[in-house]
């Protein structure tokens, strides 16, 4: 089962002829053997990945020809907002945007537009999705995860690898790992994914790795309190970050009192989430929660 993507997903890559796009598209193809095409306007009719997949001029063409239901976007920032909207217009069910540095005002419009369609959007500025032994839609290296029953949601890439690694040391695999991105505006929130993992029979526990800034973790925790029966293990990075300073991710900045790590952890714990103080304890804590 897993969530969002599996071995039956049909993936197209927007920006497949760029250096990043072609490298990662190749990795995704190698992992799940389910990349069915690419999109680069003006390069329709060519092939990519050593002739293994066709390139189309538009998402609509690619969808028609391949039946693609997932699009992975590596288009440069000035054109990425348009690429997301194009994918949504073409009826692609799941859109994952890796691109970092899209202007916020453009993301405001993207979010409003995608909400009027049936597409689900993940990112931008995220590592994407990895369903072990199923599909890789993004830049997470395949070896970090193994098939199992823990759902992993994170704002951060390498912290996801760290968490997956710790789970592995406890003999625990993952149903699906999702990096949602650390930008101020993102397509899919922690709450949305908690709901999906709750409904996924394969997932037995959920790890939620947040950061300072914004209120998404709180909204997710409040949702979990009412609707999630599976154990949720949470961590918030940035307890040592000073207010007003942007810590790498555009969204990782404490601008209000309840956006600090301490405030978020407190509220999460009050909602019944198993909050981990040390980032080194994520794996152990999940194991304990599952053994209860």
């Amino acid at each position: 089962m897993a969530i969002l993507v599996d071995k039956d997903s049909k993936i197209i890559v927007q920006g497949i002829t760029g250096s990043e796009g072609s490298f990662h598209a190749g990795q995704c193809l190698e992992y799940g053997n389910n990349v069915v095409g690419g999109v680069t306007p003006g390069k329709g009719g060519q092939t990519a990945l050593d002739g293994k997949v066709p390139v189309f001029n538009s998402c609509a063409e690619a969808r028609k020809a391949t039946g693609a239901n997932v699009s992975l976007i590596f288009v440069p920032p000035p054109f990425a907002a348009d690429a997301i909207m194009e994918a949504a217009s073409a009826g692609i069910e799941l859109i994952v945007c890796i691109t970092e540095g899209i202007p916020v005002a453009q993301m405001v419009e993207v979010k409003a537009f995608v909400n009027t369609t049936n597409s689900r959007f993940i990112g931008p500025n995220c590592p994407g999705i990895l369903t072990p032994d199923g599909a890789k839609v993004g830049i997470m290296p395949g070896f970090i995860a193994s098939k199992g029953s823990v759902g992993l949601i994170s704002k951060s890439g390498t912290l996801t690898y760290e968490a997956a690694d710790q789970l592995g040391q406890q003999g625990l695999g993952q149903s699906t790992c999702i990096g949602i991105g650390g930008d101020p505006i993102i397509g899919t929130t922690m709450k949305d994914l908690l709901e999906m993992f709750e409904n996924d029979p394969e997932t037995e526990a959920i790890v939620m790795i947040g950061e300072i800034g914004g209120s998404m973790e709180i909204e997710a925790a409040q949702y979990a309190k009412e609707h999630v029966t599976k154990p949720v293990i949470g961590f918030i990075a940035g307890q040592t970050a000073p207010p007003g300073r942007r810590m790498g991710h555009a969204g990782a900045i404490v601008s209000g009192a309840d956006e600090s790590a301490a405030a978020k952890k407190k509220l999460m714990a009050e909602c019944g989430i198993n909050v981990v103080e040390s980032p080194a304890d994520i794996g152990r804590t999940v194991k304990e929660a599952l053994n209860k």
Partner: protein
Amino acid sequence: MKIHEFQGKQLLKKYGIPIQDGVMIEDLSEAEAALDHVEKELGSDKFVIKAQIHAGGRGKGGGVKVCDNREEAREQIERMLGMTLVTKQTGEEGQLVRKVMVAQEFDMQLLFYVAITLDRSTGMDVFMVSSEGGVEIEEVAKETPEKIVREVVRPGLGLRSFQARNLAAGLGLKGQEAKQAMGIFTNLYTCYREQDCSIAEINPLVTTPDEGLVALDAKIVFDENALYMHQDIAEMRDLDEEDPAEVEAGKFDLNYIKLDGNVGCMVNGAGLAMATMDIIKQRGGSPANFLDVGGGANVETVKNGFRIILSDPNVKAVLINIFGGIVRCDRIANGIIEALKELDLTVPVVVRLAGTNADVAKELLANADVDLISADNFEDAATKVVEAAGI
């Protein structure tokens, strides 16, 4: 990206918003001409001298002074230029004042707060006004939240007339003043949109007996992702207001933020970097910096990272924590070896490498003739670095 009050006001002026105008000077020799301009061109016989630093809370720190005559104004200019201004936002060390705005003075009656920014939870811009201007809006939000009036701007629709009217009414304005306020709100929104601001704030916007509404301050912050479209805005960046080590790091695509602690850290990825800082703290140490070497880390980035971390004299030990995904650990290891050989390192270095090619990397480090402490995992690394720092 932040800009100075003076620059922000000039931008507002371009958008037809009435401002408290003046001249920005950097040297005492420019004072007379500036005072002349304010007196003759702007017709103000009183002066307001305002320190131009990027941090807020200047008034309470002595960075804003109203002067009744030229003599007083000159004294204040002399006092402020070169002073270290400490405000709630600068931290204890304060910020050196290099620029001063010599501004006209207004008789003010009511002080309002006006701002537009992004509401992350809805993904939409929100326009906020309050009759409690001239004070910290965070306090108003906490003590008397009912005194903040909001209008959500729908994407694609912009700030509509009825919304501008609601905002003006929320401030209790009527007649000509309400009409003028509506114009200011609409223009401020246009400025926010066209210039890709992340915050456009006027605090305070004041009513005056004879001159209508006037913006006495301007805090404008720009979305750095959009600067590629705004060359003129990008040129307003004042590197003097930023930490020199952070500016230097930016040249090498390193994301570095200086902190007060004594354990330097070099990590790939913002989330893991923050988590590394956290665990150092939990083990009794204190992080000296945030440093994300990014996804394209190589020998050069590692070397430059080291150099920048060690430019901070407080650093007693360095922790390198890399979880290789796309980044290959063997490349990082080579960078560490080169850096250790080239730089004259006087502090212990703890290295934890995991992920892609970690085995190769460990072998490289073990066989190289360099002095470092190897760690097996996240926890081990933090414990060892705090121990090595001798805290």
